[in-house]
């Protein structure tokens, strides 16, 4: 066997690289924590002394904001105003509110998350549990005073307000005035059923009333209306599951009965795009959807109407899920003050008005909601009324267990006509198991 200098050189080269590699990794470790905490300490000092005076953003701050691309114009306007006011640049990135919290949980601690982002309140529990969002402390009073109690509540966990409420959303029934009898949509389920008997025609694929039956968001209205609840104490108590109480079973029976009477389609085949195309081509009379589709339907249906959900056979109103969108601030942001200022600015009255005008989003700000423009709007006023008659989606992190089980439970009720009591019992057990299995 021969030895050589070359072998040694190879070894030394290896070691040099190793030294470089680990030197770098330990540097990262050392430098990342102070850089994350240093601005925070810096920033607390001035604001502490200046209690109620104007808050000053960190010098040299640069922000990143996540928002959905289709409604980017709104945030662009806020960015321009913010730049003019504080001279701080804000970079826009396309991350929608439906997945922003998921992304923040992984990206935030890694230091690559946005400073400010829009989110729907139902995932707030997970975000707080993971510690990735800052409480709304600077503007707590303003946010509470300006926005509706329900929307503030949606962003509050354990008495701490986290979000800057922006808009509220719930579902209601769009209808085509040309297709419903006398241009008046049926107001109760009994009327819907008798209307469906005349109107439904499978051969021409004409349907009276359609919603995504196999989806726990769209079908919740029935269960909520009969007094079922996912978690007790207004969605805060995960050990109290109300999916198999007497009301829930009754709701399940009624829900099942609709398959034969109103909508004879398997749950897997009812898709949003199919529903939309049937509705806009005049084959669907009543279509359950949310405010985000108002504009699309206005364009597609000549005589469009909107009503609250039909009354249930027990005389009660349906209670659909509702969501609140709001801005959140990344806990790991380097510029917390600037980020909070931007969140406050973009969720302020002015931009909620814009948001309503441009995209039909329902304002959470009470002044905007009560303004003539919104309350006279044929669609927004109905949605806001329905919002008052809705259950905010529970926001505790255990809600995941509901989302992961709802599709199977509803499909089994809807498609297989399974025994209502047994299915609802199974569903409650599944939710309990899912919570236990993720511990």
């Amino acid at each position, binding site marked *: *066997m*021969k*030895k*050589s*200098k*070359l*072998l*040694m*050189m*190879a*070894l030394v080269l*290896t*070691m040099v*690289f*190793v*030294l470089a*590699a*680990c030197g770098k*990794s*330990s540097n990262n*470790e050392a430098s990342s*924590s102070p850089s*994350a*905490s240093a601005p925070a300490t810096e920033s*607390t000092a001035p*604001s502490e002394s200046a*209690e109620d005076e104007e808050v000053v953003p960190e010098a040299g701050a640069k922000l990143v904001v996540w928002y959905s691309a289709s409604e980017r114009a709104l945030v662009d306007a806020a960015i321009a105003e913010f730049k003019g006011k504080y001279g701080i640049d804000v970079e826009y990135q396309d991350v929608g509110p439906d997945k922003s919290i*998921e992304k923040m949980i992984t990206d935030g*601690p890694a230091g690559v998350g946005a400073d400010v982002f829009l989110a729907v309140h139902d995932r707030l*529990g*997970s975000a707080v*549990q*993971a*510690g*990735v969002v*800052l*409480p709304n*402390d*600077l503007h707590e009073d303003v946010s509470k005073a300006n926005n509706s109690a329900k929307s503030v509540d949606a962003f509050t966990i354990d008495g701490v307000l986290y979000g800057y409420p922006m808009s509220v959303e719930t579902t209601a029934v769009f209808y085509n005035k040309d297709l419903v009898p006398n241009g008046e949509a049926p107001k109760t389920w009994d009327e819907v059923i008798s209307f469906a008997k005349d109107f439904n025609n*499978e051969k021409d*694929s004409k349907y009276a009333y359609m919603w995504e039956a196999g989806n726990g968001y769209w079908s919740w209205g029935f269960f909520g209306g009969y007094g079922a609840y996912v978690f007790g104490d207004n969605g805060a108590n995960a050990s109290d599951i109300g999916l198999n109480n007497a009301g829930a079973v009754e709701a399940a029976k009624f829900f099942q009965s609709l398959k034969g009477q109103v909508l004879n389609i*398997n749950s*897997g*085949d009812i898709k949003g795009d*199919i529903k939309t195309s049937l509705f806009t081509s005049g084959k669907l009379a009543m279509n359950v959807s949310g405010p985000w589709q108002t504009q699309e339907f206005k364009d597609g249906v000549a005589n469009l109407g909107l009503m609250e959900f039909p009354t249930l056979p027990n005389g009660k109103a349906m209670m659909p899920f509702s969501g609140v969108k709001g801005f959140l601030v990344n806990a*790991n942001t380097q510029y*917390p003050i600037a980020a909070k200022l931007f969140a406050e600015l973009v969720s302020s009255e002015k931009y909620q008005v814009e948001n309503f005008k441009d995209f039909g989003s329902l304002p959470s700000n009470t002044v905007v909601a009560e303004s003539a423009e919104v309350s006279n709007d044929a669609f927004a006023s109905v949605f806001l009324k329905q919002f008052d008659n809705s259950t905010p989606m529970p926001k505790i*992190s255990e809600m*995941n267990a509901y989302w*992961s089980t709802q*599709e*199977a439970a509803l*499909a089994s009720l809807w*498609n297989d006509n399974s025994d209502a009591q047994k299915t609802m019992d*199974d569903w409650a057990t*599944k939710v309990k*198991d899912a919570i*236990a*299995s*993720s511990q």
Partner: protein
Amino acid sequence: MKPNATVAGWLSVLCAGLGQWYNRQYAKAVMFLIIHVAGIYLALGPLLPQLKGLVTLGVKGQHFEKVGKINKLVPGDHSVFMMIYGVLAALVVVLFVLSYILNIRDAVVVGRRLEQGRYRDAASSSAFPWLLLAIPFLGVLFFTIMPIVFTSLIAFTNYASPNHIPPKNLVDWVGFATFDKLFNMNVWSSTFTGVLTWTIIWAILATVTCYFGGILVALLINQKGIKFKGFWRMLFIIPYAIPQFVSLLIMRNILNDKFGPLNSYFRAFGLNGLPWLNDPFWAKVSVIVVNMWIGIPVTMVLVMGILTTIPNDLYEAADVDGASPWMKFRNITMPYVLFATAPILITQFVGNINNFNVIYLLTGGAPATMKYNNAGETDLLVTWLYKLTLDFNQYNIAAAVAILIFLFIATFAIILFRRTRSFKEEDMIQ
């Protein structure tokens, strides 16, 4: 002083480089000494906290402290980053241990050579490859080995939503508890066995149908009487050329019970149509059939290539002997095709076990079922794994499933590959 390999070896054990110094290879001795000192310094200095972090995975979580009106973030330990840095540090330590062993071996080998009175350092070209390999070796170590080690380690922690997501909450080592959960906790084990069974059935059916379907199509097109061969070839390759992201989503609409064109045709002929994607059984049939549509072209093209390599005189000889078409196929065509494609058959099988696209885009795992936890009737292990990580943040269970998939595929592929004739008789093609 008489050179002595044993003395050199022991000196190197005592301190790296000492043996080389004794062998009078001073430059080499200094190099080893530097590496040795640097190693000890690094391991006890900067690397020690990282290694400790790998053991503890953090002791305090991040939290807020209220200062006046403002909530101040008090940074804590981030278990997952600590794990990554810890694994990196451990790899560096392993490298130093290797260099230490190399140093002893070098001292002994050179010492022995000196004992025999040969030259001290015969520069050899055989060491040049070592130099070339040093950088790729590091690349592989830190970019291939490290992530695999890291992913596997996740399976031995409780890294899962909602209660163990850092930085607020720490992740802990739990040993084999995750695997215990997967095999023994009812909700997980029934899902795992159910999904695993379907994965295997799917992999076998998908591979067999595409393989023989492809051979059949290739043979048919290559028949003498067939006209417009180019047209047929093009027609069959098109499904493969369209991105699956487009074609599968369209398929999904075509297979819709009520509104899909397929069932409309059925209804036009007075038939009821089938619940393609709604019924567990028919959903499984649907994914296999759609997978044939995508997979057959691959085998077809492959087999067409192989068919051209079969010497024509074999068939002529068979004709002279009066063999029937079936006998020619059985005794000439099939052995040739099988020999050439057996390794590919295995990769297709393995690929089908992890066939994410077809399932995820066509059914998304649907129809949903009450039997499973976070999975539907047509979910494969890999799509279930996707849902577990991205939709439900159950990282530890997902990592455990990933390890099991890897073990299953690796053993299977090795055993099968070693049994193929292409492996045993690989000299036949040379």
